[in-house]
């Protein structure tokens, strides 16, 4: 029974939690190991009929029997549906094996009634999800027109922000052994990089977010620039996002600096403090008398920005700086590309035109451009020993994509599990990637043009790198999928709000649990057994489309036919266990042999206990 893994179980599921209090650990839905685990999970989740495994502070809001789920892979399934303040449960017991759906309401981007009721009074509901699937249910309209249908309740709890309610993250009170809010300490991270030093200082000018409300409190700037000058620079950079240090090369002192676009405008406005700041950044690196400014945008778009007061650094104003455009498109193009991708992969794949359909989405093409941009940045810093400034328009979408990828290439620390958490906390969260706006947590306005899969795209790029360097990352694919699942789930506070300032104002760390509390309390789930930490090993990935692949185990994971085979990791883990076991036995035997020789009054030195070389045989 436990062996009978099922299609059904796979097309169910998302995320759950580690329920340590109850003793049985409900592991997150297992996409990696053939769905068999899910079956187990589902079984222990339903200890007895009708009882739902609820999280602390999770309450059932409504449930309905006789709901039909139209599964695109196995056809209609009849069962019961429950809505809690956190998720949706659908369960069908009268089939073997048991079929279940369990998804956080946060993944829903749209819930709508499709068409009018049929003659039999059936109404169809469509649920569009942020995680690459659509669900469809058919349900009888309640005869009492005053009574709300379960789907109306669902709509209310799926979009709490639009209904003036709080997100479930603010109610969830699970206690984990580790507090994930303590993972990132900016000063400790800068200290790891050797900062402050003789050229760079940590400024308190933004302590109260007065200089820039979307920047963190702690900023690293050249020592030669005063806070007053920084204030003047802030009026020249879009949204006050001044050039500040992200990372410094431990040997060459070449720096990765991030910013937003300069407000040059049509008249070519200049700002001498800004020019001085960039000169100071260049001077802080004695190895090079040049610097590169990477503008993530296509040059056409950068130029068009001048009409609106923005623009890019002119060569006259910034001598010794070379400007490079990286041709990465804007958030709208990316959103459209993902929409097309979803069309191509869900629910059905057209096998014979798969490749051209995939190409027509341009998704991998965008991934390639982003990786190529990050590669050029990393190359300039590593091989050219040159400092770089990276910006796009506002410096909170393409800029963190580029800087964080370049940092992963340059600094092996960010390839560890904790290092990666720090990288996200720093480059994305503290520097104000607008998660609330880009994801639209709890907001029913699904057509909002500010939504865009920028962060997903970054995680995809990281995944591409883990494919190319399977032994260079401490974390596994499941870690990345877990991050993405909880990007939408609203179970944890990590990805809420748009900036550090907002998170402090809403007291997010005080009222919610961090995703890292959950992750770091069960690290073994996320460890890549193939990992070898090469310190100071720079990774230069290959960015040709020929070496990029679609992340099937994420984008097409709902299709049971695309279920991943047992991964290489599995075999490696088995071998590791076998080696450990054998080693133990050898040591035992050696000890035994040593004892025997000792007792037979031999004076020869005992065999070394640690060695695995063949030992002498004693008759």
């Amino acid at each position, binding site marked *: 029974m436990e062996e009978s893994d099922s299609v059904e179980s796979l097309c169910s599921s998302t995320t759950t939690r580690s329920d340590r209090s109850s003793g049985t650990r409900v592991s997150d839905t297992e996409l990696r190991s053939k769905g068999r685990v899910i079956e187990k999970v589902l079984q222990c989740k339903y200890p007895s009929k009708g009882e739902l495994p609820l999280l602390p502070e999770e309450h059932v809001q409504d449930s309905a029997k006789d709901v039909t789920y139209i599964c695109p892979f196995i056809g209609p399934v009849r069962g019961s549906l429950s809505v809690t303040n956190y998720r949706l449960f659908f369960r069908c017991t009268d089939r073997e094996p048991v079929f279940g759906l369990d998804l956080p309401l946060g993944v829903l981007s749209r819930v709508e009634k499709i068409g009018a009721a049929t003659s039999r009074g059936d109404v169809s509901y469509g649920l569009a999800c942020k995680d690459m699937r659509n669900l469809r249910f058919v349900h009888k309209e309640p005869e009492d027109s005053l009574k709300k249908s379960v789907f109306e309740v669902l709509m209310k709890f799926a979009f709490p922000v639009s209904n003036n309610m709080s997100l479930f993250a603010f109610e969830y009170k699970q206690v984990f052994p580790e507090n994930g809010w303590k993972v990132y300490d900016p000063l400790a991270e800068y200290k790891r990089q050797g900062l402050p030093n003789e050229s760079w200082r940590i400024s308190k000018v933004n302590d109260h977010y007065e200089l820039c409300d979307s920047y963190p409190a702690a900023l690293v700037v050249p020592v030669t620039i005063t806070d007053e000058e920084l204030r003047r620079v802030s009026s020249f950079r879009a949204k006050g996002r001044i050039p500040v240090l992200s990372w410094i090369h431990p040997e060459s002192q070449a720096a990765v600096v991030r910013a937003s676009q300069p407000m040059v405008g049509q008249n070519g406005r200049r700002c001498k403090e800004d020019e001085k700041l960039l000169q100071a950044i260049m001077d802080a690196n004695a190895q090079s008398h040049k610097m590169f400014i990477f503008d993530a945008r296509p040059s056409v778009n950068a130029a068009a*920005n001048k009409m609106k007061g923005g623009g890019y650094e002119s060569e006259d104003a910034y001598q010794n700086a070379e400007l490079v455009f990286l041709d990465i498109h804007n958030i709208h193009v990316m959103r459209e590309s993902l929409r097309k991708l979803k069309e191509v992969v869900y629910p059905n794949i057209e096998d014979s035109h798969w490749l051209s359909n995939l190409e027509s989405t341009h998704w991998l093409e965008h991934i390639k451009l982003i990786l190529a941009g990050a590669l050029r940045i990393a190359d300039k810093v590593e091989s050219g020993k040159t400092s770089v400034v990276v910006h796009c*328009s506002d410096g909170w979408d393409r800029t963190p994509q580029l800087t964080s990828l370049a940092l992963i290439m340059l600094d092996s620390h960010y390839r560890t599990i904790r290092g990666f958490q720090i990288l996200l906390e720093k480059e994305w969260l503290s520097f104000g990637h607008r998660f609330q706006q880009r994801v639209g947590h709890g907001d029913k306005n699904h057509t909002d043009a*500010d939504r865009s899969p920028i962060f997903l795209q970054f995680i995809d790029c990281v995944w591409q790198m883990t494919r190319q360097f399977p032994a260079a990352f401490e974390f596994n694919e499941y870690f990345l999928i877990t991050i993405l699942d909880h990007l939408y789930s609203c179970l944890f506070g990590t990805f809420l709000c748009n900036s550090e300032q907002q998170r402090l104002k809403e007291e997010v760390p005080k009222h919610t649990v961090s995703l890292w509390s959950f992750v770091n309390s069960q690290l073994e789930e996320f460890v890549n057994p*193939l990992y070898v930490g*090469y310190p100071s090993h720079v990774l230069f990935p290959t960015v040709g489309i020929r*070496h990029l692949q679609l992340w099937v185990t994420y984008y097409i994971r709902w299709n049971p036919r695309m279920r991943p085979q047992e991964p290489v990791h599995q075999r490696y883990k088995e071998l590791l266990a076998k080696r450990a076991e054998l080693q133990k*036995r050898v040591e035992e035997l050696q000890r035994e042999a040593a004892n025997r020789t000792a007792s037979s009054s031999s004076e020869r030195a005992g065999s070394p206990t640690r060695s695995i070389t063949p030992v002498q045989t004693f008759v």
Partner: protein
Amino acid sequence: KHPDLLPGEVEFCSANPILKYTQDDLSQRGVFGTLFCTNFRVTFISDEKPQEKTDKTFKNKLYGENDIPLMCVDHIYGVYDEKRKLITGGLVKNKYPSKMIIHCKDLRVFQFSLTFSKEEDAKKIFQGIAHHCLEEKSLKCVFIWCWSHYSGCALFKASFPPVTQEDGDFQKHLDTMINAVAHNHLYSVKTEDLSESLPNIQDIQQSYNKFKQFFLIENSTDFWLSDVKWFSSLESSGWLDIIRQCLQKAVEVVECLEKDNTNVLITEEEGTDLCCVISSLAQIMLDPYYRTLMGFQSLVQKEWVAGCHAFLDRCNHLHQKDKEYHSPVFLLFLECVWQLVHQHSPAFQFSETYLTVLSDSVHVPVFSTFLFNSSHHRESVMKAESPLAQSGPLSCPTVWDWSVQFDSKAQNFFFNPLYLEKVKHDRAVRKPHKPKHQRNLSLPSTAFKTPPKKGFFKDETDSLKKMLRVKRLSRWRGSPDAPTATTREFFESWQHRPLDYHGLLLPCLDGPAVHIWMQRYLRWIPEVYILGGGSVAVMTKLMELLSQVQDLKRVLEQRDSSQAAKLDHRPYFQHRLLSFDSSGRLSSSFPFAYTCYRSFKPIIPTGLMQSLMVTDSLASQEDEASSVVSFV
């Protein structure tokens, strides 16, 4: 300076200095050296001192990185006044080109400049190479049982010549054939005419010709230009689709044998092309023995070599002008096997490197294995009386004697460290005996021993064909398109069962599951080398760990044996210690290309601007600046 000649190898001509361009940049830089043409290969020897010899663990003893066996030459191009022309017989006589480009069948690309050497030398070497590579040189079955499922039903293949003859007697023949295996009418027979449902050998050839062009990259501008339309180009070649169709057909055959327990008869005109592909694939999916190194080798030997696949014609070893018979059918088979290996790695004892090397060996004219059109052909050529063999019988090594090409250390790469060896059960608690598949009988002995005269079995096949038409034993013939839906179900029900690497193995054939054989096709292209990465990083780690485990086991067994005073003679197939000092720096093309130590610079793409022209209005829309902060 002269090349180290193999026994029997004769040098025809040479020229010096010749500039060999380095493949990976546009700067037209290169290495000067001497170009030779022998009766076995074209070879280039650099004038420069070989840089500190990188230890080539995976060295081919017959030919090195600057050697091209003559049969491996696919096309030769000459560059005349900046124009590239395909060299055919006619062009050879007149002018010699300033630059000669050689495309190899194993997808390497060589570029030589002829302008630096003396005119007569250049002319001689060009004509010599063109002559020996391109000139045409001077120099078939039947109803065959392939394999029996343990249930008793069997797989057969047969050739059906298009001509039909009204002929009696067919009933008897058929009954004799079927009854022998099918245990007295217990099972029905399904026939599948592969020439109806699969592409023919010319389609395969055309598709592959198109496909391989995408990998014959001459410089990095080409590379980045073709990178843009990569997926649609691949699709337009149709090659992956042909692979999918073959695997699909093999799954259908497997379904009949495994699920429906019917006999299956696959047919095509000659019975030696797609029949070989499908029958071999079906056997690999059904029988774990064929997933071992020895098993795979015997399968190729049985189905392909003894099964009369016309290697000589299909591989075009003799560069005949008549293109009709050329077709990479055997390569297609290896491609399909690779898909299986890629999807179910732990089920195979051999590695993808083994498959890649095997695909290369087809074009090394040293082995008897792939040189002939049939066993009959082989025997007649190899016989002492043959005019070709003036001095006693010819002796060619078979390709399976890998020591001819690789030393034992290099042969380690043929083993898959992920292979999950069958766990030997304790003899006391034996599982209920599962009847074995029959595989050892090979061909009916008559067909195997005596070279079949033309039409030896013809009567039978014709009559069989007729008989099948009359009796309509087949259930599918009525609905040729139906199988897809049922095989889908068959796959899904297999997928739900726990995975047994020593049991039935089926491939997933959905679009995203069919991949490109990266190792074979991308190994010579520097732009895609991943320094310090690629699957080699995993493989070397696994191999290390595996040898540690084996070491420990040996230690334990030595102890046991010393105590029990008996020796265990179990062979240690995989116990070969590998040491990679710099596995962190190996490139993904390992063990094939060795340029990885050259530099550690990233490869920055060029021409990105052309790449992605998003034309819709979204591109020009403003990101965030547009909306005048209207949130939270």
